[in-house]
């Protein structure tokens, strides 16, 4: 293994672990599905009949991705592509709501009524996670080369 490959491997692992830990935040969404459905509703981006379906699906998709990233190496690349799409969608949703003047929490990491309202800091954090996912995907290709 070359020095570059070692660096890419380290970057890949670091990124995967951080992303998995972030996605594990879905546990409290699974524990309290009604609160997460409310957080999804408050984005006002979906027709009402889709809110619960999407919220129930998203929380499990996040959890399955987190577990897969940590324990199923064969599926990591596929999961990273899904996570990339998820972070892009979440970031877009937050930006739209900030432009609309929403004062609600994004429900990204906490569904508590005490959670801070979404802000441009939430966008920066999501963009950083998006970048991290991109880095993990790029590193996985470099390792395979």
């Amino acid at each position: 293994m070359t020095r570059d490959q070692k660096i890419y491997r380290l970057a890949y692992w670091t990124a995967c672990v951080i992303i998995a830990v972030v996605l594990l935040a879905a546990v409290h969404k699974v524990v309290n599905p009604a609160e997460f459905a409310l957080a999804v509703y408050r984005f006002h981006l979906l027709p009402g009949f889709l809110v619960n379906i999407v919220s129930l699906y998203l929380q499990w998709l996040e959890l399955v991705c987190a577990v897969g990233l940590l324990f199923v190496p064969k599926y990591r690349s596929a999961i990273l592509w899904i996570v990339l799409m998820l972070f892009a969608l979440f970031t877009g949703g937050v930006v739209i709501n900030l432009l609309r003047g929403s004062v609600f929490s994004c429900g990204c990491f906490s569904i508590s009524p005490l959670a801070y309202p979404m802000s441009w800091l939430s966008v920066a954090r999501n963009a950083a996670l998006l970048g991290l996912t991109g880095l993990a995907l790029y590193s996985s290709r470099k390792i395979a080369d």
Partner: protein
Amino acid sequence: MFSVLFVVKKQVSILERIGIILLVSGVAALVSNSVHPNRIPWVQSWSHYVEARAAKQEIKVIPLSVALEKFQSGRSRFIDARSPDRFSDGHIPGALSIPFESFADHFERVGELIDSGRELIVYCQSRDCDDSLMLAAELKSMGAKNLVLYVDGFELWKKHGGEVER
């Protein structure tokens, strides 16, 4: 040629895996929501929800975190739309009791409040009660512009450690 085939095969296998993960997540959601003690309906009407009705009437809505911030700043006036009994059991410190059911008896006070120009934050017991929404609609029709509906209600305020006055 071989390398192109290899890349195509690899992309197909990634797509297959993406499909499997999406499927597994769907099955997990289905099973979880069937056995969950706090399960929610798959399809629910949100249009009767107080927040949705407030949006239709163009009344600004805030959650607990923002209400707490506004309370700390001391610049806003809280208005309790619940019954006098509930108000005397406990309310947000400094809140004014204007029960929606006896709104007509408080016309004069309401007029003074609106003229004060202070931000008015109306609340009631929980997310499900609509007394605060109806009171906010009345205030708006009377000319209140600096008006906000605190939608999480007194129940969550108390539960999450908000100050209570008796």
